[in-house]
């Protein structure tokens, strides 16, 4: 479903990684590992259509995904290391349509109408995870998704991941922490 063919990423004058190739089928999961600065976040941003590739191709279902970056955006649920939540808005207002669904998935239903500036760092992270449940996108790109989460929240996130994969979704995650994922491929960036 997702095919990455000999991509090269450059930041400044330095080659971050590449040429790099892999494929991921429906329901597949890939964990990116490697030391700090090895390009895990850069790769995730490239796959989301936010970053720039110097050479190579990212294909979705056989077609060049980067030809229409706005259209590719609808296939992607991207969780960066920033939570992208507004402290001045409530949890519901931050998520927009179908907020209740997402809040239930991460166990924040009781804080639906609380302004997010009263949330803890872990709760903000869970709110960012709730966006994944709402977007209904086949490709989840996760940058350190479980950072700051407690054990119960990690378990709930495991349920979300399993449900997404059972429905044919793809997961690519960069992490240093163990993730609640089974049957994962590992991609090591040097």
């Amino acid at each position, binding site marked *: 479903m997702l095919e990455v063919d000999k991509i090269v990423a450059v930041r400044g004058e330095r080659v971050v990684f590449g040429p790099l190739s892999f494929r991921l089928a429906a329901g597949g999961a890939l964990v990116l590992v490697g030391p700090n600065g090895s390009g895990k976040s850069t790769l995730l941003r490239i796959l989301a259509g*936010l*970053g720039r590739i110097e050479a190579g191709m990212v294909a979705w279902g056989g077609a060049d995904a980067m030809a229409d970056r706005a*259209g590719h955006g*609808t296939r992607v649920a991207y969780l960066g290391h920033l*939570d*992208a939540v507004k402290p*001045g*808005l409530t949890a519901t*207002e931050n998520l927009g349509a179908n907020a209740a669904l997402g809040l239930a998935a991460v166990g924040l239903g009781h804080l639906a109408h609380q302004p997010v500036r009263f949330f803890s760092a872990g709760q903000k992270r869970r709110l960012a995870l709730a966006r994944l449940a709402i977007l209904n996108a086949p490709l989840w790109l996760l940058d350190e998704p479980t950072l700051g989460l407690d054990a119960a929240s990690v378990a709930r996130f495991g349920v979300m991941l399993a449900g997404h994969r059972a429905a044919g979704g793809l997961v690519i995650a960069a992490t240093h922490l163990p993730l609640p994922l089974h049957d994962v491929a590992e991609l090591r960036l040097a």
Partner: protein
Amino acid sequence: MTGFFAIVGRDLRLSLRHGADTLAALLFFVITAALFPLAIGPAPETLGRMAPGIVWVCALLAALLPLDRLFGADFEDGSLDQLLLSGQPAALVALAKAVSHWLTTGLPLMVAAGPVAGMLNLSADAIIVLLAGLLPGTALLSLFGATGAALVLGARRGGVLLPLLVLPLCAPVLIFGVAAVDAAASEQTYAAPLLLLSALLAAALPLCPLAAGAALRGAAE
């Protein structure tokens, strides 16, 4: 299109929550305009002659104030990435931001411009022409401003760079805007400068969002 209105609605909601930030530009406009009678003396004829220029320059400077937060806040908290992934072209995201800048800054400035111009002894007929010029004028400031704000995104000291980039672009807006009011005050025909302002708006409306959208994509990379 629902995504476009979602961005505008979200920005309006945020500016209501942070009311002080929204009011700051408006109060800046009123206070700077009120400084002129103190500086150049309260002679009604002098003030009336300078009123169009004062209102336009003050409106221009006030519209600059909220620009560095227009994309800056979304860039810093990661929301910009989510906006770019919302499935809409980056140009439409930029246009939505320019529209919300106009609704939260340009429109309040227009509302305040009437009383401020009256305070500076501008005649009622001339005030109507002033407002007719400010309507396309403030929209142009929002479009040029959004383009500048997108270009300096991620630059060190972008807030300092921004006025240097946007103010020269706004010079034609200022010239035609003031020319229309001056013509009306001396009872000459004022249609030409107003039409030129509208023509500028017609050109900027499609072009500025395209440039700003490309700059947003560049900032995200």
